[in-house]
């Protein structure tokens, strides 16, 4: 096309200012936004094809699919942002089947008035996280809602992955005697988020642990293909995740409080706000449950990986019809570790 033609085809709609209803109308503004932000930064052939879906030849093996909506506030936080989180969160849920994540989709729900510069920053961050993880974002969607009907940006990512031959991980496979392993300190993500909330603001050097765990998982299933349970203790924290597993497997789980890695900042912030770190969200942590005979090998493999250097055995499964999670406190007593009840609110008493 000549320069003259280009002028008639339509100049670029300026990508300054903020998200407008027209960006979600399905018209030229939507198409331009998709090209200028998503296709440009996520850049891969499937996305460039410009269809409403991505097509691929799957490798041999069972496939897994997982989805998560991301609604974090604040959108930018120490150690990440909603974009990197949306990539890591879904990669991790796929990886928790012992699977190798292959592709991601991303659906954005944008609030009218959200700064386009912030959106671009998020997209750049997603692109970087996806590239680093080697899991491309191959299809997506963009909707815009009126101001006051959203919260800046929500991102729902969905991932597909393939499970290596011989691996069969599921939350219902824990057996009495099995060992519970954790790859590092708990509560980092939740405390990093809380530290930036208006009213609660406190100073800490804690950053979110948000990270893609599929590399660690690949090492783990390679070393111990018979690994029974993998799960990432995200919202609801370690406590809620373990209660889920206990109920799925109909076993009791017993933790040793002293063995659970925790940073001093997390402990202090929890004391300050009256929160229990067992219920604080993580975004780069996993628990693994394996047969006792496999535990040492698995722990060694975890510790050899950058995301598992502080890995620890934190407890074991026991026979218990009621499927309680209990904990020997560092103090020497015992307590139940219940599901998170309601939501954790900072408290004065």
């Amino acid at each position, binding site marked *: 096309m000549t320069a003259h*033609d280009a*002028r*008639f*085809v*339509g*100049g670029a709609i300026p990508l300054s200012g*903020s998200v407008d209803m027209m960006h979600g109308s399905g*018209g030229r503004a939507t198409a331009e936004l998709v090209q200028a932000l998503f296709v440009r930064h996520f850049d891969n052939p499937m996305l460039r094809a410009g269809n409403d879906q991505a097509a691929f030849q799957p490798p041999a093996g069972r496939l897994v699919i997982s989805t998560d909506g991301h609604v974090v506030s604040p959108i930018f936080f120490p150690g990440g942002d909603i974009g990197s989180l949306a990539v890591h969160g879904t990669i991790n849920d796929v990886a928790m089947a012992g699977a190798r994540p292959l592709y991601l989709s991303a659906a954005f729900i944008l609030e*009218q*008035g959200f700064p386009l510069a912030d959106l671009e920053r998020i997209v750049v961050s997603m692109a970087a996280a996806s590239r680093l993880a080697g899991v491309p974002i191959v299809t997506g969607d963009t909707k815009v809602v009126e101001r006051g009907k959203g919260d800046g940006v929500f991102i729902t990512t969905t991932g597909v992955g393939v499970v290596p031959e011989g691996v069969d991980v599921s939350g219902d496979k824990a057996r009495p005697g099995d060992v519970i392993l954790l790859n590092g300190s708990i509560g980092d993500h939740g405390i990093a988020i809380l530290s930036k909330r208006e009213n609660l603001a406190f100073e800490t050097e804690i950053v979110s642990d948000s990270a893609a765990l599929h590399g660690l998982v690949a090492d783990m299933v390679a070393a111990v293909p018979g690994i029974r349970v993998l799960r990432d203790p995200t919202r609801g924290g370690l406590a809620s995740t373990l209660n889920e597993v206990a109920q799925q497997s109909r076993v009791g789980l017993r933790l040793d409080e002293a063995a659970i890695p925790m940073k001093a900042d997390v402990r202090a912030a929890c004391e300050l706000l009256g929160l229990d770190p067992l219920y604080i969200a993580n975004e780069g942590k996993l628990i693994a449950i394996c047969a006792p005979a496999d535990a040492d090998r698995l722990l060694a493999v975890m510790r050899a990986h950058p995301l598992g250097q502080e890995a620890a055995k934190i407890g074991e499964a026991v026979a218990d019809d009621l499927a309680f999670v209990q904990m020997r406190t560092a103090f020497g007593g015992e307590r139940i570790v219940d599901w998170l009840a309601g939501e954790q609110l900072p408290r004065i008493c």
Partner: protein
Amino acid sequence: MKYVDEFRAGDLAHGLAAAIAREADPAHTYNVMEFCGGHTHAIFRYGVQDLMPANLRFVHGPGCPVCVLPIGRVDNALELACDPRVTLCTYGDMMRVPATGRRSLLKAKAEGADVRMIYSTQDALRIAVENPDREVVLFAIGFETTTPPTAVVLKQAAAAGLKNFSVFCNHVLTPAAITHILESPEVREIGTVAIDGFLGPSHVSSVIGSQPYEFFAQEYQRPVVIAGFEPLDVMQATLMIIRQLNGGRHEVENQYARVVTREGNRKAQALVAEVFELRSSFEWRGLGLVPYSALRIRPQFAAFDAELRFGVETKPARDAKSCECPSILRGAKKPTDCKLFGTVCTPESPIGSCMVSSEGACAAYWTYGRFRQQTRPAARSTEAAA
């Protein structure tokens, strides 16, 4: 749809097109200005231009109520919208109109201002009744068609003694603007503007009647044919103008007789006269100051005048320098003559008034008509020839 579909029938169009082609004198060029955006829209949407001979050219006038509102008044509306007490109500068309700094009500809404799109003035009144703790302002715009509905709602508010309702009045008058196009000093600066005849407003005339154009037709010796907004109406009215010009006449004729009478809607006129009075001068975007071309709220209804209640002061505000709207609105240039057309200025991000509503000349040109010259090299249309 009765009384709609009949006037869009393709078979009749061919007959009318043939008649026009026959009767248009090849030795002449016919420059016909359609004052109304409604005509502009019909011409582009139905491809009427394609059915015209090469020597008949439609000149797209300023007749879009959204396009003609000067930037300063849109700035005022924005200030009102950004007042935290105010809920500003207006028609959907106004939402995207660019103000100073390319702001708009849509952007203000996106930033948190309470702006509501209404379908009818009755909606604004209802919002005021339902939200007694809000200052509900009706941002009233438009020609003689939207003015009576504003008058009705002002009288209803007064009758109900509503304390939280007011109107920011921007109603304008079409005959004054038509006159101005041929009379204003700017025309001389732009150069010779050859407008041979006018398609007169259809719906405006249903309210004011055809009588107000009679002085103009005589004074400026130009035929005026009141024309409906359906494509066959436009074609038939065009034929009537050609016939007047061929016959050396310059009369007011009424093609849209099914709705328009010489005297118009007397009840509506009385309501408007009761509630509004003339402004001695008002700015039209693209045309500049036009004397006696707009209305304001009478002192009896001062309690409902948002200009008084909020101390609205309209500051002079300039359109973008390179925007060619003033020349386009007078027929001296075409949208594609503007350097900004299609690059900086598009319907998604309009710079000048002609790109704002789908009835503006630049927007209609962009949306429906651009580049026929590129995809259809055979120059049947005047654009291609020009």
